[in-house]
């Protein structure tokens, strides 16, 4: 059976209608994204209702089955098989791919169309996707993924994937874990049952004989309670309950309260003792000290009178010193009195300093007033003389440099003239040499022309003689006997120095040119001499004497100017000095006015002397002021103030202590406070001794016995409870044992299934791999020069599944390599396709079709051609999708009359075929 026709509408990227007749060889060709894979996916979807290799979270978020750009919102695929059975599957757009219905209809009546279709095809979905539909992802998994995932892919290809999945899923550990939990529950039950035997009746009876009958427990507890009640009252605790717990708690509280109360009473006695000491101190000792101080300094009641007296004594002194009169407060008086010695010292010092300054002023005034002189000024004639001298000196200073420059210029010209005259002395001799050389050159020129002509004639004669070889000389007509001898004679007689003469002419001519150049240069210098001589006549000859005269005049005038200048400077000094004395006198008078605080009047020195005497007298008065008597009175006033404050403090302290005594005694104390405190101390100590003497030992002993009786009573109760529940526990244990048995059956069954599945898997894998004709397809697809054989090596993992290793071998099997380690991507692709084709050929099923989605990835031209030729030999229906133009051409060439569906580039209108 094969696929005959496919009609697609709105499925994934296809448009409203795509009609595809399918033949023995079908090629689907188009650019990337044009919808080729969608067409192949539609075949898988219509058969199995699921998309191949499309799983995961994103397919729960949108419906990837229905074309989103079409208004219909519906996908429909119809497949016609070779026996004209028609299958149709539809789907209305949903919110996700994984939810919603994909109803299937078949052209004949069946209750379960899905089962019927799979029955027709003869393959489960996994087998279909492994052995019929070679998807791009399958090839990629085969090459790049982990060994386990690759092995799972190969398991799918060779059809043993269900075995792999079954071995992994059937895990006997799951029921084994449940068995372990049940066994632990049985152990817990066993422990409960065994406890009942520990609390046996014999043991309880023995304990009754030792501790008594629990029936007497209430009487015993009441007796203990009666013993504890007076103790609790003494310790101010609530009355106990007549239970074991209540009595235990009450006893513990009583013991704790005993310790606490004794400690508190002892502490109380100590605190009252300390209070008694403080009261004694505040009421007796301190008052005695105050009385002694009053005897020494007087009564504090006199303090105001004493302070007024001090104020009266101090007032004139502070007024003299310019200080403020204090009030009657001790601190004010004390502060004022403390300031007196300091102010006394500074004021007297200041007055004496002032007297000294006035004395100094007086001396300065007298000194300066003697030095002051009348006004002086510089005479006008002297100023005029200085200006004239200065003007003449300036004129001379400008003329002397001009004359000096003219003198230097004349001297330089005379030196140049001397040098030029020395050089032009050689000019007459040079002109003579030139004339001689010109004559010699004329001679050499004439001689050279003659020699050249002679040589030309001689050369022509020799050429004539050698060519004609005459018997007689054409010039002299003499007979030529020996031509060679004649020629030799001519050569010998030819002037040999023509060339030498030329060379001599050349050298002489060069020398002549050189001499003529020298003569021209000397002539130019001669002309220059004449010009310099003309210029020299223009400069005066007595320049040196003129310069000398002017220098002497300048020197003489400078000396005169210096004398005049010194005289003027001297007069200027006297002017400055007079001004200085007048300024100083003015300053001193201003200072005197400031010191006296009034103008000094006409008789300055007298006014100053009077002021000096006044200041000294005031200083003496201030130094004589005596404050010691006032200080003594102030000291006494301070003592009286302190006594007054101490009395107040002492009264406050006594009030505080009495308040504490009142609180300690919890009542106002009697008149004799000391006796009341002594009595309180004694009472606290007696009560502490009484509490300390409380004895709990008999009560503890009785309470322990009561606890034993209580335990016996509880054990009896528990024993009765165990005895009643024993049967229930045994029933539960039986139920758990039954569960273990059932779980063990399940575990054994799963173990059997797992073990047998592993064994079966081993058998199938071994047989299948041996039967597969992988080599043939591999050799057709890949012309590897060395590794000609290909095989799948199974390796059993500890989990019981297989890992497969694809190994390539040489023909003699002496060398081998794993495909993943050494093969290129294209070679590994060839290996994957070879295995796929071999498996496809081996497995028997009803659908004789093979579908390949873009199988030529990464292949070069030769591999593509080989793949096309190999697919052409497959004796089944072949459908190939490709975007590769070369692969398409190879397929068209290899397949006989293939059906070709060429797709346009995809648009939102959906995938469409080229017209």
């Amino acid at each position, binding site marked *: 059976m094969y696929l005959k026709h496919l009609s697609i509408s709105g499925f994934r990227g296809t448009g409203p209608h795509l009609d595809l007749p399918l033949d023995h060889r079908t090629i689907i060709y188009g650019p990337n994204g044009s919808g080729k894979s969608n067409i192949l996916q539609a075949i898988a979807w219509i058969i199995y209702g699921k998309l191949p290799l499309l799983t995961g979270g994103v397919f729960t978020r949108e419906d990837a089955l229905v074309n989103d750009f079409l208004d219909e919102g519906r996908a429909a695929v119809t497949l016609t098989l070779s026996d004209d059975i028609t299958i149709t599957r539809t789907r209305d757009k949903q919110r996700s791919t994984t939810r919603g219905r994909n109803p299937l209809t078949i052209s004949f009546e069946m209750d379960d169309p899905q089962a019927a279709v799979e029955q027709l095809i003869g393959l489960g979905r996994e087998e279909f996707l492994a052995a019929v539909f070679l998807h791009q992802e399958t090839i990629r998994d085969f090459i790049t993924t982990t060994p386990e995932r690759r092995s799972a892919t190969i398991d799918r290809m060779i059809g043993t994937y*269900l*075995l792999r999945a079954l071995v992994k899923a059937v*895990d006997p550990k*799951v029921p084994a874990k*449940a068995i372990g939990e049940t066994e632990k529950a049985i152990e817990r039950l066993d422990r409960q049952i065994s406890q009942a035997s520990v609390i046996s009746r014999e043991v309880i009876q023995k304990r009754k004989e030792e501790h008594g009958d629990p029936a007497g427990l209430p009487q015993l507890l009441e007796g203990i309670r009666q013993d504890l009640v007076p103790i609790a009252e003494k310790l101010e605790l609530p009355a106990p309950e007549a239970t074991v717990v209540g009595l235990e708690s009450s006893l513990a509280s009583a013991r704790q309260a005993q310790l606490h109360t004794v400690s508190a009473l002892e502490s109380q006695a100590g605190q009252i003792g300390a209070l008694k000491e403080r009261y004694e101190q505040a009421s007796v000792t301190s008052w005695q000290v105050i009385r002694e101080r009053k005897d020494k300094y007087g009564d504090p009641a006199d303090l105001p009178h004493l302070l007024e007296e001090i104020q009266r004594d101090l007032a004139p002194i502070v007024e003299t010193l310019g200080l403020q009169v204090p009030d009657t407060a001790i601190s004010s008086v004390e502060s004022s009195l403390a300031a007196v010695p300091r102010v006394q010292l500074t004021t007297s010092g200041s007055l004496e300093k002032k007297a000294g300054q006035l004395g100094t002023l007086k001396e300065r005034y007298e000194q300066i007033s003697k030095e002051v002189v009348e006004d002086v000024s510089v005479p006008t004639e002297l100023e005029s003389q200085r200006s004239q001298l200065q003007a003449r000196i300036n004129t001379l200073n400008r003329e002397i440099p001009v004359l000096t420059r003219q003198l230097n210029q004349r001297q330089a010209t005379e030196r140049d003239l001397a040098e030029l005259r020395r050089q032009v002395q050689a000019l007459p001799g040079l002109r003579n040499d030139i004339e001689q050389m010109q004559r010699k050159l004329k001679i050499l020129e004439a001689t050279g022309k003659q020699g050249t002509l002679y040589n030309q004639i001689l050369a022509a004669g020799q050429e004539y003689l050698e060519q004609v070889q005459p018997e007689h000389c054409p010039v002299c007509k003499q007979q030529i006997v020996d031509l060679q001898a004649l020629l030799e004679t001519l050569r010998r007689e030819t002037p040999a120095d023509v060339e030498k003469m030329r060379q001599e002419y050349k050298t002489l001519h060069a020398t002549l040119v050189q001499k003529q150049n020298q003569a021209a240069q000397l002539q130019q210098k001669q002309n220059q001499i004449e010009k310099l001589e003309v210029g020299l006549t223009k400069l005066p000859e007595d320049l040196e004497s003129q310069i000398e005269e002017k220098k002497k005049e300048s020197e003489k005038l400078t000396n005169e100017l210096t004398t005049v200048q010194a005289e003027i400077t001297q007069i200027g000094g006297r002017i400055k000095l007079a001004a200085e004395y007048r300024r100083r006198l003015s300053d001193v008078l201003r200072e005197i006015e400031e010191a006296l605080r009034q103008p000094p009047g006409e008789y300055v020195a007298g006014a100053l002397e009077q002021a000096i005497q006044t200041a000294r007298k005031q200083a003496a008065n201030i130094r004589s002021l005596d404050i010691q008597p006032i200080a003594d009175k102030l000291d006494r006033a301070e003592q009286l103030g302190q006594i007054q404050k101490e009395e107040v403090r002492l009264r406050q302290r006594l009030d505080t202590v009495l308040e504490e005594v009142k609180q300690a005694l919890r009542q106002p104390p009697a008149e004799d406070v000391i006796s009341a405190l002594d009595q309180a101390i004694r009472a606290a100590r007696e009560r502490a001794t009484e509490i300390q003497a409380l004895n709990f030992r008999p009560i503890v002993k009785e309470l322990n016995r009561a606890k034993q009786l209580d335990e016996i009573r509880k054990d009896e109760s528990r024993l009765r409870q165990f005895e009643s529940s024993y049967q229930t526990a045994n029933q539960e244990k039986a139920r758990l044992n*039954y*569960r273990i048995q059932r779980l063990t059956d399940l575990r054994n069954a799963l173990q059997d*299934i797992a073990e047998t599945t592993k064994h*079966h898997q081993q058998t199938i894998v071994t047989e299948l791999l041996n039967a597969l004709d992988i080599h043939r397809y591999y050799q057709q697809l890949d012309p590897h020069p060395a590794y000609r054989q290909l095989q799948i090596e199974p390796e059993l993992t500890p989990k019981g599944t297989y890992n497969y290793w694809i190994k390539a071998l040489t023909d003699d099997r002496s060398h081998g390599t794993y495909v993943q380690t050494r093969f290129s991507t294209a070679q590994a692709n060839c290996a994957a396709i070879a295995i796929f084709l071999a498996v496809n050929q081996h497995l028997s099923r009803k659908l004789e079709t093979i579908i390949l989605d873009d199988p030529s990835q990464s292949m070069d031209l030769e591999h593509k051609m080989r793949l096309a030729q190999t697919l052409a030999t497959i004796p089944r229906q072949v459908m190939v999708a490709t975007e590769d133009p070369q692969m398409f051409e190879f397929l068209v060439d290899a397949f006989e009359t293939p059906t070709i569906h060429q797709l346009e580039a995809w648009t939102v209108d959906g995938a469409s075929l080229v017209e």
Partner: protein
Amino acid sequence: MSIAEQIKTNLVDPNKHAPILKALVDILEEQGEKGVKNRIKKWIEEIKAETPPPTESKE
């Protein structure tokens, strides 16, 4: 014969484990490994809820 059929018919003793095996393979084909694991857990829960058959008294 498909692998699933081979498993169902030949894998283990049909008399002993046939019901379990048939159920497991059906689930494996439909729901994959996870479905098989969930079915085994469900069996265990069913066993836990079972009551043992009444036994005859020794007396």
